[in-house]
């Protein structure tokens, strides 16, 4: 059966207003390039994870790396998230720049203790920094079921000492991964698996980074701000397009980094539009929408012309069967309903 979200958005997602020079590149390939180029640039950078070597990773993000850089710098590990993450922490503490792959980001749960208690707190407690990246495929939309579809961002946004990044375009995926690898602190890098081979945009040939902590206005608008990130950016843009036909001008803000949040960008946009709606694929309670709503209601209260709304997944695991997963995920229809309510307010 056809995937509802592909059908909805066409086979390839790309930023219509994308004027960057460069080569049309898939999101997944952009990640692979970032790894390749950073390993070329800096011999401290290495990759470790399950099946990242000969196999090139479950999603092929590390394809060709072992051929180029050898078995030591593209290290196949046992089936052991604590070895991968613990190993990366230790290596980072001794001067390397490890990039650890989780085969699916869901399995990061098995390294939760090491990430939240060791990596995140080490600099504060002992002065020894942990410059490492943990990356992996996140998010739903491909009928992966409860254990291959999770959005674990808040577990890490909740943990001081970590940074959390979630690119929605190929350009950002490459630029943010490079920034993450060069960062002196541990970064959780959430790749949206739905976008791997669907999103394609221009990526410069020369070296560049996208700074961690900076959101991007993807579409300027006057009537309300839709704050989002990851795969939901594309839902927001599609909805904004439809709203424009109705004369509603929606601004779409792509967070790109989830921790630290680009508070300035969020507040500036909401102060312009007076209305704020947060859209995310993660479940509702305690999602990033809550933090954004809290920030806005604290710091832009005077500018608000309506309640802050959240359009999110419900508070359930991610179901597997297509009609259930479709009901679970926010989509253009549910988003439009909320936007119209807010605009009418």
């Amino acid at each position, binding site marked *: 059966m056809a995937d509802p979200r592909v059908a909805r958005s066409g086979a390839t997602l790309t930023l219509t207003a994308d004027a960057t020079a460069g080569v049309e590149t898939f999101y997944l390939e952009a990640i692979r390039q970032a790894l390749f180029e950073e390993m070329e640039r800096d011999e401290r950078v290495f990759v470790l994870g399950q099946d990242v070597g000969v*196999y090139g990773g479950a999603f092929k993000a590390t394809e060709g790396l072992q051929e180029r850089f050898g078995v030591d710098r593209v290290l196949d590990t046992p*089936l052991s998230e604590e070895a991968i993450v613990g190993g990366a922490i230790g290596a980072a503490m001794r001067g390397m720049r490890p990039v650890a792959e989780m085969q*699916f980001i869901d*399995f990061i749960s098995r390294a939760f203790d090491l990430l939240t208690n060791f990596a995140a707190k080490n600099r504060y407690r002992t002065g020894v920094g942990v410059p490492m990246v943990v990356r992996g495929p996140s998010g739903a939309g491909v*009928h992966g079921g409860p254990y291959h579809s999770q959005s674990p961002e808040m577990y890490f946004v909740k943990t001081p000492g970590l940074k959390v990044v979630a690119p929605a375009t190929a350009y950002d995926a490459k630029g943010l991964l490079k920034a993450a690898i060069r960062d002196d602190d541990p970064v959780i890098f959430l790749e949206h698996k739905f976008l791997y081979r669907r999103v394609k945009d221009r990526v410069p040939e020369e070296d560049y980074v996208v700074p961690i902590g900076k959101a991007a206005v993807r579409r300027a608008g006057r009537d309300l701000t839709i704050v989002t990130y990851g795969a939901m950016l594309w839902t927001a843009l599609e909805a904004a397009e439809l709203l424009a036909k109705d004369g509603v001008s929606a601004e779409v803000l792509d967070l790109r980094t989830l921790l630290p949040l680009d508070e300035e960008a969020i507040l500036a946009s909401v102060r312009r539009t007076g209305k704020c709606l947060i859209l995310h694929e993660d479940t509702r309670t305690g999602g990033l929408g809550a933090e954004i709503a809290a920030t806005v209601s604290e710091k832009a209260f005077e500018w608000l012309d309506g309640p802050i709304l959240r359009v999110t997944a419900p508070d359930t695991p991610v*179901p597997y*069967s297509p009609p259930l997963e479709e009901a*679970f995920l926010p989509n253009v229809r*549910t988003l439009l309903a909320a936007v119209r309510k807010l605009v009418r307010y």
Partner: protein
Amino acid sequence: MTTSLPPQRLADLYRCMLLNRLLEERLVHLYRQGKVVGGLYRSLGQEATSVATAFALDEGDLLAPLIRNLGSVLARGIPPRDILTQYMARATAPSGGKDANLHFSVPEKGVYSPIAMLGTLVPVVAGMLLADRMQGKRTVGMTYLGDGGTSVGAFHEGLNFAAVQRLPLVLVVEFNGWAYSTPYEKQCAAATLADKALGYGIPGEVVDGNDALAVYEAARAAVNRARLGGGPTLLECKTYRMKGHAEHDAQAYVDPKELTAWRVRDPLARFESALESSGAMPAAERRRIHDEVESQLDADVAFAEASPFPDPALAFRGVYADESILERGRAGVFMGGL
């Protein structure tokens, strides 16, 4: 051929291994037709390990399979249609479409779902057995783990707990040479995985996992020991994964010679020739069973294909016993009915 199994049980064992093999062939067909939702995880070549271990359990015992243990759940009486509807994400599936493949529980049959995170089942099954013992039941529990899965910490914590408590657990380690694309040398430096048993103070045994009758005897001994209070056993079955990790994996990393070498050790063919040469089951009888299985599968495939997909509203239900917690207008909010 030496076996402690009476003729009827022998026939059942054969039927079950055949069902495992043929059901999987149906699944491959459905997968190629795009009717399987998500991945398909094969057990080709490992049927003897799954089926014959589960066969060693008695009525009322517990079984917690991993996704390659199709044969184990069939041996516990799960009908093929439950597997087909699971893989096809239909409303009639045991999980109602909420989870995939062998991720479902049928407590009445003592079958409990794994989660994807390998290793986590071990302490959970230990807890189940602890509970049963506290309730005066003499339940034995069996669960599985691959050569990869033994690297996970929950395996260690769970097995250690079971050993200290002398719980009636049979932990079957399925050594099939691979964890996705990772060969055993990159997984563990021990000579055999059964060597881990010493470190928990429990028996560790190695058996030819492609020899159904040998597997049965080893598993039965472990089950008996467990039932009599002898505590857990780590039973390593040496077998081989004849297909890629999942159907999309062409296993390019595998030396074709290795596959050829293992093909001749196919557990089903081996069992058939033992049945043949010992005269325990004539070819005609095997053919009859084969035909029965095929016609059961025809009916079950038809059932699965005719089954509807689940009602979207199910997505919002069943998180808590008290549905009201999440229900307060949820479906309305989330399905655009704002």
